[in-house]
Each structure stands twice: as structure tokens, then as C-alpha cells.
């Protein structure tokens, strides 16, 4: 994936020089190992700081919401699906965008890698599918495929589904992936065990809303947890309020979530927030054969109606 960056810079420079866009949204190198920072470039000089590697896990579609400029955006498979969702939901116009598609082989899980070592990681480099991790007293090379973010390991849409430029040949899509093993495990539990699982998952939540704010779907002008008139949810550390936030947010993402993993990546407490959103993603797939963000032509199942709907109550 490292060779992509020259092509990204070349396309971005051309777009700015030809004044086809006002800005390009991409990533620049972060100040810590395994971290890149979303950034914009309005001139060709700024493009020089762009990077592309396996640490570009934040979903850039999140930076498009309600913008008025003409924008070039670097988009891996999941970002492109959220761009589609943004277009469908009128959060950005297709005409405003030049999508620089990036075929993706997955992003690495910085929390998993950090937890593998007792002391601090000071440098992480990658080359040909190998990740070399260095720190005080260790220097280890890992297979990238073994340290992918969990959502990337089971991704079946690695190539952008919508783009104007493609930086490289499409990569092979993963086949025969079991996407929902974890959801089935929870589905098989007794109600008490499910409840306990959810309680355990959320017990360290600090209500910082990093998961919500990293999510391209969470663009409501005022989120229900922030409403004051009326106030739907309490603001303390009360577990009922914390659960209400997470459950409702997941339901609000039903049929829209692309499982990009930005929520999990953003969480400072290491909570697997996807445990909630994925159940609804699975339901939408099984009930409506629906995967979010694949086409700008089709309405999502929860904002459309078909006369042939299998459920009686809706007719």
C-alpha cells in the first residue's frame, strides 16, 4: 500500500492545479507510532505532507458533512461506502466531490499491537505485508494480516465502490468470510448473559462520545443525548444512561453502518462498540439482503417501502 502515496499526491496536485477542487482531504503523518491525522490541503505544498499506510483507519467521509467546497477526498473501501451514504442522505453532493479511490488491504489495530508488548512502542514501520515494531528492548516483525483491525480482517469491500480516480489496480476481495461469528455468539446467549455481556462491554465507558463523533453517520444537528428540551437521557455515569446512549446510537445506524471500525478505533477506553452496530448490520443483511453504501441509486431499507414487504404489519 505504501506506493499509493505517490499516486495520491500526483492526482491531488493535478486536481488543485486544474482548480477542479478547492481542497483535498487526506492523512498526514501523526506524532505517535500507528497514528495518522486527517488533514486538508488547499495548495500543492500542503500535499507534500500527505501519507498513506496501514494507519489511516479514521473514516474520512466524516469530514465531508455539510461542507460547501468542491472537495477531493482520499477514500478506501469503507470511506467510499460512507460517501455513498452521505450522498444518499444529502450530506454532500456528488458534484462537489472528486473521489480518489484507494484499494485497501486493511488497517492495523494499534490497540492490539500495543497490548502485545510490555513497554512502550517507539517505532512501527511496514514493508511488503510485514509490520516491524520497535521499542525499548524489543524489535519484532509481525505479519500484517495477523494484526488487522477486526473489521478489516472480515471486510468484503476493500475496493472503493465509487470513485473518480483510482490510485492502483483493485485488490482481490476476501471471499468466504464469516462476518458474523461474534454476533451469533451473543445471539445464542440467554437474556441474562446478553445483559451481562453488554454491561461488561460498557463498564469503562466515560461518555466522551468519541465513538459517535468519529462515526460519519452521527451527524444529527443535536444528538438525542445532548437534547435539553426535553432531556431524554441523564448525563452521569449511571449505567442505564450509558447503555441507552450506546443502544440507541446503534439502532440509529441500522442499515447505514458500513462497519468501518472508526468507533472502535476512536474509543480511548478500548470498548468494542461494534458489538452493537454489527448485530443491526447483520439483521439488515438477513432481512433485506442489504449492505450499506454500495450504490447511490438505491434507498436504504429503513427509509423506503416496497409493496412486497414480507411483514404483514406494514401493509
Amino acid at each position, binding site marked *: 500500500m505504501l506506493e499509493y502515496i505517490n499516486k495520491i499526491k500526483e492526482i491531488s496536485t493535478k486536481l488543485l492545479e486544474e482548480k477542479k477542487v478547492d481542497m483535498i482531504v487526506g492523512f498526514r503523518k*501523526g*506524532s*505517535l507510532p500507528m*497514528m*495518522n*491525522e*486527517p*488533514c*486538508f490541503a488547499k495548495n500543492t505544498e500542503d500535499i507534500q505532507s500527505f501519507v498513506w499506510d496501514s494507519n489511516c483507519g*479514521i473514516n474520512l467521509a*466524516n*469530514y465531508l458533512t455539510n461542507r460547501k467546497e468542491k472537495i477531493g477526498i482520499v477514500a478506501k473501501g469503507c470511506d467510499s461506502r460512507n460517501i455513498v451514504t452521505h450522498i444518499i442522505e444529502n450530506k454532500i453532493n456528488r458534484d462537489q466531490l472528486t473521489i480518489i479511490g484507494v484499494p485497501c488491504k486493511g488497517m492495523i489495530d494499534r490497540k492490539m499491537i500495543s*497490548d502485545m508488548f510490555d513497554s*512502550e512502542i*517507539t517505532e512501527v514501520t511496514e514493508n511488503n505485508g510485514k509490520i516491524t515494531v520497535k521499542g525499548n528492548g524489543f524489535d519484532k516483525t509481525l505479519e500484517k494480516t495477523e494484526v488487522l483491525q477486526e473489521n478489516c480482517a472480515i471486510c468484503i469491500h476493500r475496493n472503493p465502490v465509487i470513485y473518480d480516480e483510482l490510485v492502483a489496480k483493485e485488490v482481490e476481495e476476501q471471499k468466504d468470510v464469516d462476518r458474523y461469528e461474534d454476533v451469533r455468539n451473543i445471539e445464542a446467549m440467554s437474556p441474562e448473559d446478553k445483559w451481562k455481556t453488554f454491561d*461488561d462491554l460498557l*463498564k*469503562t465507558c*466515560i*461518555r*466522551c*462520545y*468519541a465513538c*459517535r*463523533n*468519529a462515526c460519519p453517520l452521527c451527524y444529527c444537528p*443535536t444528538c438525542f443525548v*445532548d437534547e*435539553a428540551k426535553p432531556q431524554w437521557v*441523564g*448525563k*452521569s*455515569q*449511571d449505567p442505564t444512561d450509558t447503555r441507552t446512549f450506546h443502544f440507541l446510537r446503534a439502532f440509529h445506524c441500522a442499515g447505514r453502518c458500513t462497519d468501518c471500525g472508526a468507533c472502535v*478505533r*476512536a*474509543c*480511548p*477506553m*478500548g470498548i468494542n462498540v461494534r458489538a452493537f452496530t454489527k448485530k443491526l448490520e447483520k439483521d439488515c443483511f438477513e432481512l433485506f439482503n442489504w449492505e450499506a453504501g454500495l450504490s447511490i441509486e438505491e434507498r436504504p431499507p429503513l427509509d423506503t417501502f416496497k409493496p412486497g414487504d414480507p411483514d404483514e404489519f406494514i401493509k
Partner: protein
Amino acid sequence: MKVIKIDKTKWAEGLNKLRSDYQLIGPVKKDKYHDFQMLGKDQLPDVELLNTRMSPKSVVFPQSEVMLEYSLDETKEDHHIIKEVEKDASPRAVFGIRPCDAKALMLVKLNFDTSDYKDPYWIKAFEASTFIGMACDDPASTCFCTSTGCGPYNEEGLDVLMIDVGDHYLAKGITEKGEKLLKTAGWEDTSDDASLIESKKGEAEAKITSKVATENLKDKAILDLYEAPFWEDTAFSCLNCGTCTYVCPTCWCFDIQDETHGKKGIRMRNWDSCMFPLFTLHTTGHNPRETQIHRVRQRFMHKLKYFTDKYEKGIMCVGCGRCVRLCPVNIDIRTVCDKMNNYAASS
């Protein structure tokens, strides 16, 4: 003040002696990460841990704290009367607090304990606590305490400073509270190793290589910094989540809420964050910090400029590095501080 030698074999024994006079608090593993918690009966604090994920500010300033209570039950004589809730103000001993976090308590104190206003909840909890610090000999790359008026052996805010010397700890009593605690624990072997502390301190300071420059901040004009063009670039990636403010040991903002369940109600305060739009939303609907840029600029201007000007105690940051490590999009206060410190307004 004298220096006491605590053999590590006598550590647990001393702690146990303390348990009858103090509630013990210290870093323990909670789920995946360490946090400051009340210690269980035989539980020992993990004092040699680099640092906890959340800061110990919650020991005196919990994320959610009930302040007052009331009843709406009109059959009761005291209905609709707001009353103070009972607070446990018994002595507590906080172990394993790092010097950066202890200094942060002193910065937070500037807000909660002033000549005009005294926050009874914060002050009560603070005064009930004895803080036993642990000097840092092995900092992280994101530690920059030496450029924030702090340091790995800094004593501000601490009652005892402990130093790890292999098979034993050295404990330097800093305040009377601290000396009393050492005595209660039965740690009374004096050490003549005071010079060792100085040399270890020098070594530890030298290990902190991450620096920020703050010397020009005071002389910058507020409006020059406020209007500086770099905020657009700095703020762009910010998600406006509360991570940086919640993990920060010096962020002190809170929101007051009433919660009524049936006929019983409480008034509580919860941490709030200047990153949230609701933080400044007026009842008119007007929001003076309406956009993400406004909010990001506010956070850094408060920490690095307004605070510096108002209190003349340096910046409102102790260099613990938590916000640097935990920001989901890697906004780094060190970079922003340097930008502000080096900014020259074009006239």
C-alpha cells in the same frame, strides 16, 4: 524532612496497618487498563505502573457527584427542601500518584479553592486525602513534564514522595500529613540516602526528551493568537469528542443536573467538556462557540494562554501526555503549544 527506607518485604504489612485509619486508593487494573480505585481488603496498589489511563483527579473530583437531594413527597415534612447529602470525609491515602498528576491537583485547586469561592465538595475530599507520590524513573515518550514547571521528582501537591530503589523504597515525608501516614504504617527506618534521591532525580529528568516551548506565550497579544490562521489547520481533524478533557488531570469544568426518579431527586455535577457544542449553548439558542474551530481554539487558548495570563503559574498542563496518547485523531498539544509560542502575527 527525613527520608524513610521501606523494605519491599514490609510494604504490604505497612499498608495493612494503614487500613484501619485510612481508606486506601491506588492504581489497580480495571478491565483492560489501570485506574485509581478504592482498594479491597487485601488488594495492593500497583505503584510501579507507569501511569493510569484516567487521571487521579476523580479521587477529589468524581466524574459524577451527588451534591444535594430533595423529596417531592408532600406527605413528608421536608418535601421540596434541598438538602446537602452526607459525604464520607474520613481520611484516605492515595498511593502511586505520579508527580505530574499531583501538580495537576494544585492547578485544579486554583479553581475550587479561592479567596472568593470555596467548593465544599472538592475541598473536603482534598483535605481528607494524603497523597503518596511515586517518582518517575522510566517516562514515556509522550511525557513532557519538565517543560511544564513540573518534573519526575516534583513534590508539589504531594505529602510523601516515594522513590523506587530496587529492593526498597525511599519515602520522603513532605508535609506533616505525610509524616503521620509514614508513622502510622510503621515505616520508621531512616535512611541516609538523601543524596541518592538527588542523583536519581537528575537521571530521571535527563530521560525526558520531549519538550515544549512556553516562554513567549505570556507576551503574545491574546487577539493575535485568537486570530492566528493556524487554527483552521489545527482544528480540522478534531472530532469534538470529550476524550482530551476527560483524561486531562487539569480540566475542571462541570455541569449541574437535577435528576428526579419518582418522588426522589438529586442535584449532581458531572464533568463537562468545552469540546461539546452544548457546553456554551445559551437558552436563547445562540451559541457563542458554534463551530468546531471555536471550540478547539478555546481549549488550547484556555490551557496555554488565558490561564497563563490569569494565574501567572505557567500553563494549565502538566505534561502527562494522556491527551496526546488518547486523542482519536492525534491532535498533539505539544505541536499546538509550539505553534502558539512561535507565532508571529503579520502586521
